């Protein structure tokens, strides 16, 4: 392998052609394009956790799906373990689907209500034809469930998803995703639907698996403090672009980009008393359908100047491993 990175994405763009109504069709001829992801590049090393933080509509989930070829790439490329991912390369895709897994946000939606736990967990084995006998299948499922903290295993094997709690369902999802021993997992808000007391158990499990199997994660979340807690690097996304990327403590305490700073300013800090000085960014994220010239953040940025409305800043390295996309990055 020429490259030590698990995932390398270069200038990835995912644009969707929005279906128009008849009236819109008549009025204007040009297509309406939703730029969910609009030129994103980053890489994830072995055993690394990269958190992708952003609000809804920032394109963070689409980025995760596009890496796993679950959303069509308009431009750019994804390299996996040094090899470019091509959907029509059947042999490569078979390996890729085993090595890269996805955990979805909603454990209530991501399990087939008519399958029992055993079949759900064993499904990847069945799909790839990895076990020969029923006994072997059961053994692998047992191991996976135990690893996911579902013991005694016998109690859960023959249950349906609706007979499990939210936390248990997410553990089943994890067991199923980990049964093929992947090297890379996209975790899309894996704990945001769960109660606070259950969250830590799932997070602990994710980190444990990283330790044991040298797993790399793309951890997608809207919760900056959670990202700070578990990741090695944080990337801040806004309207399909990465605004800033760097080490968690750097982002949280010495963030450069005005958007990062707005996010950290409103971050709740339990136990810390009311900070009346905090500045809340007014307005809301514009729709990704709108054509925005210049910096994507210029409509809400407190320090925007004329240049921001004309020229889009590129992601530049400020110090080793700390990238910021802002014209005034050096002045802040």
């Amino acid at each position, binding site marked *: 392998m020429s490259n030590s990175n698990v995932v390398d994405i270069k200038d990835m763009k995912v644009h969707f052609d929005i279906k128009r109504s008849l009236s819109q069709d008549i009025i204007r001829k040009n297509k309406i394009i939703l730029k969910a992801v609009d030129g994103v590049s980053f890489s994830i090393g072995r055993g690394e956790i990269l958190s992708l933080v952003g*609000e809804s509509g920032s394109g963070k989930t689409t980025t995760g799906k596009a890496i796993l070829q679950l959303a069509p790439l308009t431009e750019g490329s994804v390299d996996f373990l040094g090899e470019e991912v091509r959907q029509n390369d059947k042999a490569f895709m078979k390996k890729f689907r085993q090595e890269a897994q996805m955990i979805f946000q909603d454990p209530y939606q991501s399990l087939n209500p008519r399958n029992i736990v055993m079949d759900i967990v064993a499904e990847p084995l069945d799909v790839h034809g990895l076990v020969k006998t029923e006994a072997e299948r059961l053994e692998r499922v047992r191991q996976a469930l135990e690893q996911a903290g579902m013991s005694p295993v016998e109690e859960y094997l023959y249950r349906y998803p609706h007979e499990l709690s939210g*936390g248990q369902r997410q553990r089943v999802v994890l067991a199923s995703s980990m049964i093929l021993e992947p090297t890379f997992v996209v975790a899309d808000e894996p704990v945001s639907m769960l109660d606070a007391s259950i969250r830590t158990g799932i997070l602990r499990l994710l980190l444990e698996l990283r330790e044991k199997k040298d797993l790399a994660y793309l951890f997608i979340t809207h919760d900056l403090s959670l990202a700070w807690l578990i990741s090695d690097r944080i990337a801040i996304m806004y309207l399909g672009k990465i605004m800033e990327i760097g080490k968690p403590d750097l982002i949280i305490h010495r963030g450069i980009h005005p958007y990062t700073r707005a996010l950290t300013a*409103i971050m709740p*800090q*339990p*136990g810390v008393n009311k900070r009346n000085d905090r500045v*809340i960014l007014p307005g809301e994220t514009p729709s990704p359908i709108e054509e925005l010239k210049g910096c994507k953040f210029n409509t809400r940025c407190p320090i925007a100047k004329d240049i921001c409305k004309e020229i889009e800043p590129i992601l530049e390295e400020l110090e080793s491993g700390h990238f910021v996309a802002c014209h005034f990055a050096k002045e802040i």
Partner: protein
Amino acid sequence: MTLLEVKDLKTYFDTSKGLYKAVDGTSFDLDYGEALGLVGESGCGKTTCALSITRLLPKEGKIHGGEILFEKTDLVKLNDNEIRARRWKDVSIIFQGSMNALNPVMKVGDQIAEAVVFHEKVSRKEALKRAEELFELVEMPAKRINNYPHEFSGGMKQRAMIAMALACNPKVIIGDEPTTALDVMVQAQILNLLEKLRKELRMGLILITHDLSILAETCDKIAVMYAGKIVEIGTVDDIFMRTGHPYTQRLISCFPNVGKEKILPPAIEGVPPNLLEPIKGCSFYPRCHMGIPICLEIEPESRELGGKHFAACHRSGEVSHE
């Protein structure tokens, strides 16, 4: 005079499997201009509490005991017509998905005016004028009352819902997860707005949420609910600095604090008890890291820990915050 006093409220649901004790002996009070945060995990009874106060319980739910004193009037004893007349004027409620409750084919201003006309004997014109004032109150341009809901973003819809809740000058406003579905930035905006409004209008605010971390900056008092009961209640400082219940302690540590050391907190093992079955002893005992034999036998009484700080734990004095 206290604005709202809930005393030993018991709300049970009559299900096919038996009596579900959603709220089982809950007491708290709320003063003018005060904000109380009600926090707990799903199924702990916090929403049932809100529905009991507004008497909006589904037909299976009944208040089996206790009093809800609103300026000395017991809301539990009022009949349906009396409570309907009071609902918007005295107590208003904003739900999590309430922004989706706006009628899509009616102008937002008209919907607010309709609510005003329904409760106060004013003309439609006056009511529309009131709607404009309300929009300015929630920091939206007054002319937007002529827009339809689909022309609003999620945050603006929630603002409109707050405007509607304020239409009849309520004295208490209850927000049941009012910001949960919104983006963090908009969430902060809405919480700030609620805080400003309750101070300006001297309203009582009850903020119900599962997210303990947002309460520290918006509330004066926090009540922590578990299995239908308030296990700890006190000022924000009481809860965070002088924690008196192991559940509160664990709940606090579940929210990462960027100002502190980066450690993954201990998980709360197990699941909340089944409220269909009788609970012996302390309801948190099976999940508690501080349990002693007495917890299994005797249900702890709510004990005062100084000031108006109460906790229901046999070892409340020993809970350390860290």
